[in-house]
Protein backbone atom coordinates (compact mmCIF):
# COMPACT_ATOMS: atom_id res chain seq x y z
CA UNK A 1 0.00 0.00 0.00
CA UNK A 2 1.03 3.64 -0.32
CA UNK A 3 -0.56 4.94 2.87
CA UNK A 4 -0.62 5.16 5.77
CA UNK A 5 3.17 4.90 5.78
CA UNK A 6 3.85 3.64 9.24
CA UNK A 7 5.57 0.75 10.98
CA UNK A 8 4.91 -0.84 14.35
CA UNK A 9 2.89 0.77 17.08
CA UNK A 10 3.35 3.35 19.82
CA UNK A 11 5.61 1.02 21.82
CA UNK A 12 8.09 1.03 18.94
CA UNK A 13 7.32 2.30 15.49
CA UNK A 14 7.50 5.19 13.10
CA UNK A 15 5.40 7.17 10.67
CA UNK A 16 6.69 8.89 7.54
CA UNK A 17 5.72 12.47 6.86
CA UNK A 18 3.31 12.50 3.90
CA UNK A 19 4.99 15.43 2.19
CA UNK A 20 8.64 14.63 2.92
CA UNK A 21 9.83 10.99 3.05
CA UNK A 22 13.01 12.02 4.90
CA UNK A 23 10.98 13.00 7.95
CA UNK A 24 9.57 10.57 10.47
CA UNK A 25 7.88 10.54 13.83
CA UNK A 26 9.39 7.73 15.86
CA UNK A 27 7.36 6.19 18.69
CA UNK A 28 9.19 4.71 21.66
CA UNK A 29 7.17 3.71 24.76
CA UNK A 30 4.41 6.17 23.77
CA UNK A 31 6.88 9.02 23.40
CA UNK A 32 6.97 10.85 20.04
CA UNK A 33 10.43 11.67 18.71
CA UNK A 34 11.03 13.51 15.43
CA UNK A 35 13.60 11.79 13.22
CA UNK A 36 15.17 12.75 9.91
CA UNK A 37 17.01 10.14 7.86
CA UNK A 38 18.53 10.91 4.49
CA UNK A 39 21.24 9.92 2.05
CA UNK A 40 23.81 12.47 0.95
CA UNK A 41 27.20 12.40 -0.70
CA UNK A 42 30.39 14.34 -0.20
CA UNK A 43 32.23 15.33 -3.36
CA UNK A 44 35.77 13.96 -3.13
CA UNK A 45 38.55 16.55 -3.05
CA UNK A 46 40.67 16.53 -6.19
CA UNK A 47 44.25 17.77 -5.89
CA UNK A 48 47.74 17.26 -7.24
CA UNK A 49 49.00 16.16 -3.78
CA UNK A 50 51.86 18.70 -3.95
CA UNK A 51 50.86 20.30 -0.61
CA UNK A 52 48.74 19.18 2.35
CA UNK A 53 45.89 21.44 1.33
CA UNK A 54 46.05 20.04 -2.21
CA UNK A 55 45.66 16.42 -1.19
CA UNK A 56 43.07 14.36 -3.01
CA UNK A 57 40.55 12.12 -1.26
CA UNK A 58 41.39 8.47 -1.85
CA UNK A 59 41.91 5.02 -0.40
CA UNK A 60 43.94 6.27 2.59
CA UNK A 61 42.19 9.53 3.41
CA UNK A 62 38.70 10.92 3.30
CA UNK A 63 38.82 14.56 2.24
CA UNK A 64 35.46 16.03 1.23
CA UNK A 65 35.10 19.04 -1.00
CA UNK A 66 32.35 21.10 0.64
CA UNK A 67 29.12 20.19 2.36
CA UNK A 68 27.25 16.98 1.61
CA UNK A 69 24.69 16.99 -1.20
CA UNK A 70 21.33 15.21 -0.79
CA UNK A 71 20.79 12.41 -3.31
CA UNK A 72 17.14 11.52 -2.83
CA UNK A 73 14.26 12.52 -5.04
CA UNK A 74 11.79 13.39 -2.31
CA UNK A 75 8.87 13.42 -4.75
CA UNK A 76 9.05 9.64 -5.13
CA UNK A 77 6.46 8.00 -2.89
CA UNK A 78 7.63 5.16 -0.65
CA UNK A 79 5.65 1.91 -0.55
CA UNK A 80 4.55 -0.05 2.49
CA UNK A 81 4.51 -3.84 2.79
CA UNK A 82 2.79 -5.28 5.82
CA UNK A 83 2.16 -8.79 7.12
CA UNK A 84 2.16 -11.00 10.18
CA UNK A 85 5.97 -11.25 10.53
CA UNK A 86 7.42 -7.98 9.28
CA UNK A 87 6.39 -4.50 8.20
CA UNK A 88 8.50 -2.66 5.66
CA UNK A 89 8.71 0.67 3.89
CA UNK A 90 10.47 0.52 0.52
CA UNK A 91 11.97 3.77 -0.64
CA UNK A 92 13.82 4.38 -3.89
CA UNK A 93 15.82 7.61 -3.80
CA UNK A 94 17.20 7.49 -7.34
CA UNK A 95 18.67 4.94 -9.76
CA UNK A 96 21.54 4.08 -7.43
CA UNK A 97 20.35 4.68 -3.88
CA UNK A 98 17.43 2.90 -2.21
CA UNK A 99 16.42 1.67 1.21
CA UNK A 100 14.06 -0.65 3.08
CA UNK A 101 13.01 0.42 6.57
CA UNK A 102 11.84 -2.61 8.49
CA UNK A 103 10.37 -3.64 11.83
CA UNK A 104 9.99 -7.30 12.74
CA UNK A 105 7.14 -8.22 15.05
CA UNK A 106 8.18 -7.89 18.67
CA UNK A 107 11.70 -6.68 17.85
CA UNK A 108 13.36 -3.84 19.77
CA UNK A 109 15.09 -2.01 16.91
CA UNK A 110 14.28 -0.46 13.56
CA UNK A 111 16.30 -1.80 10.67
CA UNK A 112 17.45 0.37 7.75
CA UNK A 113 18.64 -1.79 4.85
CA UNK A 114 20.51 0.46 2.44
CA UNK A 115 21.50 -0.39 -1.12
CA UNK A 116 23.93 1.97 -2.82
CA UNK A 117 25.55 1.69 -6.24
CA UNK A 118 26.71 1.51 -8.90
CA UNK A 119 27.80 5.09 -8.14
CA UNK A 120 27.77 6.82 -11.54
CA UNK A 121 31.02 7.96 -13.11
CA UNK A 122 29.61 10.18 -15.88
CA UNK A 123 30.69 13.47 -14.25
CA UNK A 124 34.01 12.00 -13.00
CA UNK A 125 33.38 13.54 -9.60
CA UNK A 126 34.24 11.20 -6.71
CA UNK A 127 31.26 10.55 -4.45
CA UNK A 128 31.36 9.41 -0.82
CA UNK A 129 27.83 8.44 0.21
CA UNK A 130 26.56 8.75 3.77
CA UNK A 131 23.38 7.82 5.59
CA UNK A 132 22.52 10.50 8.14
CA UNK A 133 20.13 10.18 11.09
CA UNK A 134 19.06 13.26 13.01
CA UNK A 135 16.88 13.91 16.03
CA UNK A 136 16.29 17.68 16.08
CA UNK A 137 16.82 19.44 19.42
CA UNK A 138 18.65 16.44 20.94
CA UNK A 139 21.30 17.73 23.36
CA UNK A 140 24.38 15.52 23.42
CA UNK A 141 26.70 18.43 24.08
CA UNK A 142 29.02 17.79 21.08
CA UNK A 143 29.90 14.44 22.60
CA UNK A 144 29.38 11.02 21.10
CA UNK A 145 30.61 7.47 21.66
CA UNK A 146 32.13 5.04 19.21
CA UNK A 147 33.22 1.48 19.87
CA UNK A 148 36.78 0.19 19.74
CA UNK A 149 36.59 -2.99 17.67
CA UNK A 150 33.27 -3.93 19.23
CA UNK A 151 34.57 -3.69 22.78
CA UNK A 152 34.86 -0.57 24.97
CA UNK A 153 32.88 2.53 23.98
CA UNK A 154 35.19 5.53 23.61
CA UNK A 155 34.13 9.10 24.31
CA UNK A 156 34.61 11.50 21.38
CA UNK A 157 34.22 15.25 21.62
CA UNK A 158 33.85 17.41 18.54
CA UNK A 159 37.16 19.14 17.60
CA UNK A 160 38.91 17.80 20.69
CA UNK A 161 41.76 15.34 21.36
CA UNK A 162 42.32 13.94 24.85
CA UNK A 163 46.12 13.76 24.48
CA UNK A 164 46.95 17.20 23.02
CA UNK A 165 45.43 20.62 22.44
CA UNK A 166 43.81 20.86 19.06
CA UNK A 167 44.40 24.51 18.15
CA UNK A 168 42.69 24.61 14.80
CA UNK A 169 40.88 21.91 12.95
CA UNK A 170 40.97 22.77 9.27
CA UNK A 171 39.43 19.43 8.35
CA UNK A 172 36.12 19.99 10.09
CA UNK A 173 34.47 16.84 8.77
CA UNK A 174 37.36 14.40 8.43
CA UNK A 175 38.97 15.59 11.67
CA UNK A 176 35.90 14.36 13.52
CA UNK A 177 35.45 11.07 11.67
CA UNK A 178 36.14 7.85 13.59
CA UNK A 179 36.06 4.17 12.72
CA UNK A 180 32.69 2.70 13.66
CA UNK A 181 33.17 -1.06 13.84
CA UNK A 182 29.87 -1.93 15.51
CA UNK A 183 28.08 1.14 16.90
CA UNK A 184 27.89 4.88 17.43
CA UNK A 185 25.84 6.43 20.24
CA UNK A 186 24.60 9.77 21.52
CA UNK A 187 23.16 10.47 24.94
CA UNK A 188 21.46 13.39 26.67
CA UNK A 189 22.01 11.56 30.00
CA UNK A 190 18.35 10.44 30.17
CA UNK A 191 18.06 8.71 26.80
CA UNK A 192 20.41 7.03 24.40
CA UNK A 193 20.25 7.07 20.60
CA UNK A 194 22.42 4.55 18.77
CA UNK A 195 23.01 3.18 15.32
CA UNK A 196 24.61 -0.25 15.03
CA UNK A 197 26.23 -1.30 11.76
CA UNK A 198 26.93 -4.67 10.19
CA UNK A 199 30.45 -3.81 8.97
CA UNK A 200 33.17 -1.31 9.77
CA UNK A 201 32.36 2.17 8.47
CA UNK A 202 33.58 5.72 8.94
CA UNK A 203 31.23 7.90 10.92
CA UNK A 204 30.71 10.89 13.13
CA UNK A 205 28.27 13.18 14.88
CA UNK A 206 29.01 16.60 13.42
CA UNK A 207 26.05 18.34 15.06
CA UNK A 208 24.02 17.64 18.18
CA UNK A 209 21.40 14.94 17.57
CA UNK A 210 23.09 13.79 14.38
CA UNK A 211 24.76 10.52 13.39
CA UNK A 212 26.29 9.90 9.99
CA UNK A 213 27.85 6.76 8.59
CA UNK A 214 29.66 6.41 5.28
CA UNK A 215 28.23 3.50 3.33
CA UNK A 216 29.99 3.56 -0.03
CA UNK A 217 32.53 5.61 -2.02
CA UNK A 218 33.83 5.77 -5.58
CA UNK A 219 36.74 8.04 -6.39
CA UNK A 220 38.58 8.73 -9.65
CA UNK A 221 41.87 10.22 -8.37
CA UNK A 222 44.68 8.55 -6.41
CA UNK A 223 45.60 10.18 -3.09
CA UNK A 224 49.34 9.45 -3.62
CA UNK A 225 49.81 7.73 -0.27
CA UNK A 226 51.08 4.50 -1.78
CA UNK A 227 48.41 2.38 -3.41
CA UNK A 228 48.89 4.26 -6.69
CA UNK A 229 45.35 3.47 -7.86
CA UNK A 230 42.11 5.41 -7.63
CA UNK A 231 39.43 3.87 -5.38
CA UNK A 232 37.30 2.96 -8.36
CA UNK A 233 36.36 -0.68 -8.11
CA UNK A 234 34.12 -2.12 -10.80
CA UNK A 235 32.32 -5.38 -11.51
CA UNK A 236 30.38 -6.28 -14.65
CA UNK A 237 31.67 -3.04 -16.19
CA UNK A 238 30.04 -0.73 -13.63
CA UNK A 239 30.81 0.48 -10.12
CA UNK A 240 30.26 -1.84 -7.17
CA UNK A 241 26.92 -2.14 -5.40
CA UNK A 242 26.95 -2.28 -1.60
CA UNK A 243 24.06 -3.50 0.55
CA UNK A 244 23.96 -3.50 4.32
CA UNK A 245 22.05 -2.76 7.49
CA UNK A 246 21.87 -0.08 10.14
CA UNK A 247 19.94 -0.88 13.31
CA UNK A 248 18.48 2.09 15.13
CA UNK A 249 17.78 1.93 18.87
CA UNK A 250 16.43 4.63 21.17
CA UNK A 251 15.32 4.56 24.80
CA UNK A 252 16.22 5.14 28.44
CA UNK A 253 19.96 4.88 29.09
CA UNK A 254 19.76 2.01 31.60
CA UNK A 255 17.60 -0.14 29.33
CA UNK A 256 19.53 0.55 26.12
CA UNK A 257 22.85 -0.95 27.26
CA UNK A 258 21.23 -4.38 27.39
CA UNK A 259 19.29 -3.90 24.15
CA UNK A 260 22.43 -2.87 22.25
CA UNK A 261 24.68 -5.60 23.64
CA UNK A 262 22.23 -8.37 22.80
CA UNK A 263 21.38 -6.87 19.41
CA UNK A 264 25.07 -6.58 18.47
CA UNK A 265 25.65 -10.24 19.32
CA UNK A 266 22.55 -11.33 17.43
CA UNK A 267 23.40 -9.37 14.29
CA UNK A 268 27.19 -9.68 14.17
CA UNK A 269 27.36 -13.37 15.12
CA UNK A 270 24.33 -14.55 13.19
CA UNK A 271 23.16 -18.16 12.87
CA UNK A 272 24.65 -20.10 9.99
CA UNK A 273 22.32 -21.33 7.26
CA UNK A 274 22.64 -24.83 5.79
CA UNK A 275 20.32 -25.96 3.00
CA UNK A 276 19.55 -29.58 2.11
CA UNK A 277 17.56 -30.37 -0.99
CA UNK A 278 15.06 -33.21 -0.72
CA UNK A 279 15.12 -35.34 -3.84
CA UNK A 280 11.57 -36.55 -3.28
CA UNK A 281 8.91 -34.65 -1.36
CA UNK A 282 8.39 -36.12 2.12
CA UNK A 283 6.05 -35.32 4.97
CA UNK A 284 7.25 -33.94 8.27
CA UNK A 285 6.36 -37.28 9.90
CA UNK A 286 8.51 -39.24 7.45
CA UNK A 287 11.37 -36.81 7.81
CA UNK A 288 11.25 -37.04 11.58
Amino acid at each position, binding site marked *: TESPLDLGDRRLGLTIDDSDPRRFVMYVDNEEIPLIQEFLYYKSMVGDNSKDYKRASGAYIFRPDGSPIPVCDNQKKPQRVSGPVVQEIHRECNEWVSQVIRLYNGDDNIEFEWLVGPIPNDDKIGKEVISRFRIPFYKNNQTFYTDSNGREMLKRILNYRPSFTLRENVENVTGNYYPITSRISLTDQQTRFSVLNDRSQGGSSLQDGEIELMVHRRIFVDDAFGVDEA*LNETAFGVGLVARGHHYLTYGPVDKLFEVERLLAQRKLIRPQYFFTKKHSVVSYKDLK
Partner: protein
Amino acid sequence: EPKITPLRETMGMMQHHDAITGTEKQHVANDYARLLSEAMEECEEASCTILSGLAAGIETSADCKTCQLLNISQCEVSEHSEQFVLTLYNPLSRPVTEFVRLPIPSETAYSVVDPSGQRLTVQFVPLPSAVLRIPGRKSSATSELVFQADDLPPLGYKSYLITKEPSSSYLNRLRAERSAQSE
Protein backbone atom coordinates in the same frame (compact mmCIF):
# COMPACT_ATOMS: atom_id res chain seq x y z
CA GLU B 1 41.69 -30.32 10.05
CA PRO B 2 42.88 -30.00 6.43
CA LYS B 3 39.44 -28.69 5.44
CA ILE B 4 39.46 -26.00 8.13
CA THR B 5 43.09 -24.90 7.90
CA PRO B 6 42.76 -22.93 4.62
CA LEU B 7 40.16 -20.64 6.21
CA ARG B 8 42.36 -20.20 9.30
CA GLU B 9 45.30 -19.28 7.10
CA THR B 10 43.25 -16.93 4.94
CA MET B 11 41.83 -15.21 8.01
CA GLY B 12 45.45 -14.76 9.10
CA MET B 13 46.25 -13.03 5.84
CA MET B 14 43.16 -10.82 6.23
CA GLN B 15 44.75 -9.30 9.34
CA HIS B 16 47.16 -7.39 7.11
CA HIS B 17 46.54 -3.65 7.44
CA ASP B 18 45.83 -3.27 3.71
CA ALA B 19 43.20 -6.04 3.81
CA ILE B 20 41.48 -4.44 6.82
CA THR B 21 41.36 -0.90 5.49
CA GLY B 22 40.98 -1.63 1.78
CA THR B 23 44.21 0.10 0.80
CA GLU B 24 45.46 -2.92 -1.18
CA LYS B 25 45.84 -2.76 -4.94
CA GLN B 26 42.88 -3.99 -6.97
CA HIS B 27 44.53 -7.23 -8.10
CA VAL B 28 45.40 -7.98 -4.47
CA ALA B 29 41.77 -7.30 -3.45
CA ASN B 30 40.65 -9.74 -6.13
CA ASP B 31 43.12 -12.33 -4.85
CA TYR B 32 41.88 -11.86 -1.25
CA ALA B 33 38.32 -12.47 -2.47
CA ARG B 34 39.45 -15.61 -4.31
CA LEU B 35 41.31 -16.98 -1.27
CA LEU B 36 38.37 -16.30 1.07
CA SER B 37 35.85 -17.81 -1.31
CA GLU B 38 37.86 -21.01 -1.81
CA ALA B 39 38.61 -21.37 1.90
CA MET B 40 34.96 -20.88 2.83
CA GLU B 41 33.95 -23.52 0.31
CA GLU B 42 36.31 -26.04 1.89
CA CYS B 43 35.04 -25.17 5.35
CA GLU B 44 31.46 -25.61 4.16
CA GLU B 45 32.25 -29.24 3.40
CA ALA B 46 33.56 -29.77 6.93
CA SER B 47 30.56 -28.01 8.52
CA CYS B 48 28.13 -30.09 6.49
CA THR B 49 29.90 -33.34 7.39
CA ILE B 50 29.59 -32.47 11.07
CA LEU B 51 25.96 -31.40 10.69
CA SER B 52 25.02 -34.52 8.73
CA GLY B 53 26.15 -36.54 11.75
CA LEU B 54 23.92 -34.47 14.03
CA ALA B 55 20.91 -33.12 12.21
CA ALA B 56 17.78 -34.80 10.96
CA GLY B 57 17.14 -34.33 7.25
CA ILE B 58 20.74 -34.02 6.15
CA GLU B 59 21.46 -37.49 4.85
CA THR B 60 24.82 -36.84 3.25
CA SER B 61 27.16 -33.92 3.26
CA ALA B 62 26.94 -33.81 -0.55
CA ASP B 63 23.28 -32.69 -0.23
CA CYS B 64 24.17 -29.85 2.11
CA LYS B 65 24.80 -26.34 0.75
CA THR B 66 25.27 -22.84 2.01
CA CYS B 67 24.06 -19.84 0.03
CA GLN B 68 26.92 -17.35 -0.27
CA LEU B 69 24.79 -15.01 -2.40
CA LEU B 70 22.00 -14.40 0.09
CA ASN B 71 23.40 -10.86 0.38
CA ILE B 72 21.98 -10.20 -3.10
CA SER B 73 18.84 -12.27 -2.41
CA GLN B 74 19.97 -15.14 -4.59
CA CYS B 75 19.96 -18.80 -3.54
CA GLU B 76 19.84 -21.74 -5.90
CA VAL B 77 18.26 -24.15 -3.37
CA SER B 78 15.40 -21.96 -2.13
CA GLU B 79 14.60 -20.75 -5.65
CA HIS B 80 14.52 -24.09 -7.43
CA SER B 81 13.61 -26.80 -4.90
CA GLU B 82 10.17 -28.29 -4.40
CA GLN B 83 11.24 -29.12 -0.86
CA PHE B 84 14.31 -28.51 1.26
CA VAL B 85 15.48 -28.48 4.85
CA LEU B 86 16.97 -25.34 6.32
CA THR B 87 19.22 -25.98 9.31
CA LEU B 88 20.14 -22.97 11.43
CA TYR B 89 23.18 -23.30 13.66
CA ASN B 90 23.37 -20.80 16.52
CA PRO B 91 27.01 -20.00 17.39
CA LEU B 92 26.06 -17.99 20.50
CA SER B 93 25.99 -19.41 24.00
CA ARG B 94 22.38 -18.36 24.57
CA PRO B 95 19.14 -18.97 22.69
CA VAL B 96 18.35 -16.52 19.88
CA THR B 97 15.44 -15.77 17.58
CA GLU B 98 16.27 -15.32 13.91
CA PHE B 99 14.06 -13.79 11.24
CA VAL B 100 14.78 -15.90 8.18
CA ARG B 101 14.55 -14.38 4.69
CA LEU B 102 14.84 -16.72 1.70
CA PRO B 103 14.67 -15.63 -1.95
CA ILE B 104 11.85 -17.34 -3.85
CA PRO B 105 10.09 -16.91 -7.19
CA SER B 106 6.93 -14.83 -6.85
CA GLU B 107 3.43 -16.28 -7.11
CA THR B 108 4.68 -19.30 -5.18
CA ALA B 109 3.43 -20.42 -1.80
CA TYR B 110 5.50 -22.31 0.74
CA SER B 111 4.82 -24.04 4.02
CA VAL B 112 7.38 -24.05 6.82
CA VAL B 113 7.29 -26.71 9.54
CA ASP B 114 9.44 -26.39 12.65
CA PRO B 115 11.13 -29.30 14.51
CA SER B 116 8.08 -29.84 16.72
CA GLY B 117 5.84 -30.28 13.68
CA GLN B 118 4.21 -26.85 14.00
CA ARG B 119 3.34 -25.06 10.80
CA LEU B 120 4.82 -21.55 11.11
CA THR B 121 3.32 -18.24 10.07
CA VAL B 122 5.08 -17.10 6.91
CA GLN B 123 5.07 -13.88 4.92
CA PHE B 124 5.95 -13.21 1.28
CA VAL B 125 7.65 -9.88 0.74
CA PRO B 126 8.39 -8.51 -2.74
CA LEU B 127 12.03 -7.65 -3.39
CA PRO B 128 12.62 -3.94 -4.05
CA SER B 129 13.22 -3.24 -7.75
CA ALA B 130 16.72 -1.95 -6.94
CA VAL B 131 17.68 -5.47 -5.80
CA LEU B 132 16.43 -6.98 -9.06
CA ARG B 133 18.69 -4.53 -10.95
CA ILE B 134 21.93 -5.46 -9.13
CA PRO B 135 24.50 -6.07 -11.90
CA GLY B 136 25.56 -9.71 -12.10
CA ARG B 137 22.60 -11.03 -10.13
CA LYS B 138 21.30 -14.17 -11.83
CA SER B 139 18.17 -15.13 -9.97
CA SER B 140 14.55 -16.02 -10.56
CA ALA B 141 13.63 -14.71 -7.11
CA THR B 142 11.38 -11.67 -7.01
CA SER B 143 10.16 -12.16 -3.44
CA GLU B 144 11.40 -13.34 -0.09
CA LEU B 145 9.87 -15.93 2.19
CA VAL B 146 10.07 -14.55 5.73
CA PHE B 147 9.47 -16.45 8.94
CA GLN B 148 10.49 -16.34 12.58
CA ALA B 149 12.80 -19.10 13.82
CA ASP B 150 12.27 -19.01 17.58
CA ASP B 151 14.65 -20.07 20.31
CA LEU B 152 17.57 -21.54 18.40
CA PRO B 153 19.40 -23.43 21.15
CA PRO B 154 22.82 -22.19 22.34
CA LEU B 155 25.62 -23.73 20.26
CA GLY B 156 22.96 -25.90 18.66
CA TYR B 157 20.69 -26.13 15.67
CA LYS B 158 17.09 -26.40 14.53
CA SER B 159 15.93 -27.73 11.18
CA TYR B 160 12.90 -26.48 9.27
CA LEU B 161 11.12 -28.38 6.51
CA ILE B 162 10.16 -25.98 3.71
CA THR B 163 7.81 -27.19 0.99
CA LYS B 164 6.48 -25.47 -2.12
CA GLU B 165 2.70 -25.68 -2.04
CA PRO B 166 0.46 -26.21 -5.03
CA SER B 167 -1.19 -22.83 -5.55
CA SER B 168 -4.74 -24.28 -5.25
CA SER B 169 -4.13 -25.78 -1.80
CA TYR B 170 -2.49 -22.54 -0.69
CA LEU B 171 -5.48 -20.47 -1.85
CA ASN B 172 -7.95 -22.84 -0.20
CA ARG B 173 -6.06 -22.63 3.08
CA LEU B 174 -5.88 -18.84 2.82
CA ARG B 175 -9.64 -18.64 2.21
CA ALA B 176 -10.33 -20.95 5.17
CA GLU B 177 -8.07 -18.86 7.43
CA ARG B 178 -9.72 -15.61 6.31
CA SER B 179 -13.21 -16.97 6.82
CA ALA B 180 -12.23 -18.24 10.29
CA GLN B 181 -10.83 -14.80 11.08
CA SER B 182 -13.95 -12.98 9.92
CA GLU B 183 -16.13 -15.32 11.98
